[in-house]
């Protein structure tokens, strides 16, 4: 599974790296940093949870 983040949309809610800490990280400002662009099968549920909870719809899957 592929994941991508639209950095222009991210404003640092931090839902992704709280709910899916193995897929998403944070930079100094608290904005999303992608840890795993190619998500292994065991992390797919986590990635989806993080993406679904982004209030800015900044995370794309697939």
């Amino acid at each position: 599974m592929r994941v991508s983040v639209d950095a222009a949309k991210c404003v640092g809610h931090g839902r992704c790296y709280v709910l899916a800490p193995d897929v998403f990280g944070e930079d100094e400002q608290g904005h999303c940093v992608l840890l795993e662009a190619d998500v292994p099968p065991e992390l797919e549920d986590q990635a989806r949870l993080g993406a679904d909870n982004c209030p800015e719809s900044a995370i794309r899957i697939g």
Partner: protein
Amino acid sequence: MGPPIVDPETGTVSLFDPEFARCPQPVYAELRRRCPVARAAFTESPVVSRYEDVVWALRHPEIFSSAVDTRLVLGTERPMIPQQIDPPAQTRYRKLLDPHFSRKRMAALVPEIRRHANALIDAFVDAGRCEFDEQFAIPLPCTAFLALLGLPADRLDFFLEIKDGIIRPQKGRDAMTLEQMKEVRVESGRKSYAFFEETLDERSAAPRDDLLSTLLRAEIDGERLTRSEILDICFLLLLAGLDTVTATLGCNVAYLASNPSQRRRLVEDPSLVPSAVEELLRWETPVTGVPRVAKRDVTIGDFEIKEGELVTLLLGAANTDDEHFPEAQRVDFARERNVHTAFGVGAHRCLGSHLARMELQVALEEWHRRIPDYRIEPGQTPRVSPGIREFMYLPLVWDV
């Protein structure tokens, strides 16, 4: 019975009705269904309530500006930074401030908040009763915030007085005229600027490892912040930091006091606390709405908003919209997808959201560990303020 809170015939809503503050969800439903853009009673200003419309407006700061007339809203001389500034200037301030309020930084404050929560509970746990606002909800976040800013904790009462003077000038007084309220606001604003001027002078002379000293050193595009800019940031931090978590704690605990089965779920499974915090933010939405000013004529549905009109975006109504949230009227602590707008959406996402979440989680964990079973004192009616829904009188009792 007074007049209805929502009057679909005229399309008006009384946002300052006490019943609306106490129980807003049915009012939101009526607004979304009957008048998705209503007009506020007295001010005539448009009030937007559907999720889709609220989020659209929040994502278009070039149409819905945050640069509202500050003198009308609060007793400030200049806009508060960065809340009342639009991008791109706002973005530069956020780049500077966000790192100081990041999730990582806030996590470091957990032990201190936990200790303080327990110290507060120690003071009343054996009495079997407390007035939640005064004895827990007000002191807990205020002390944390003062520490974060490097402000003296023994000045708590002074800050509370200023904050109330600006946000609720009528608190604890008999009826006031609008003119008197304005006077209290302006005077409180003046006192707060004077205090920060003095403290900034002290930090300039003797810098410390705190946020105020950092602001004095900070640069945007190679330029130091001006004294005015720092004061306008301080003023926002003071108001935002002292009020919103207090209000949220009251809303959450009032809900849990009145819904024993939901409370038991949390007590039995504290791992639900983080998602319960999100769900209660969605359901209660203590900051019911945010103001914007229309930069040009704009149409929402068939409602025409005119350039210059002050518009209220009702976050609480957006957060309970059935079109967006499955089973929106059900409070579900295990809700998997919860993209609520309680901290705003877009460029102005609440700067303190990570601080607030941390404080709320720690507070709910410690409270329920120490006082798992409690209720609103029988025969007593809580009092809730409008706008920012603070339970200003919330008497709780439990068995000892």
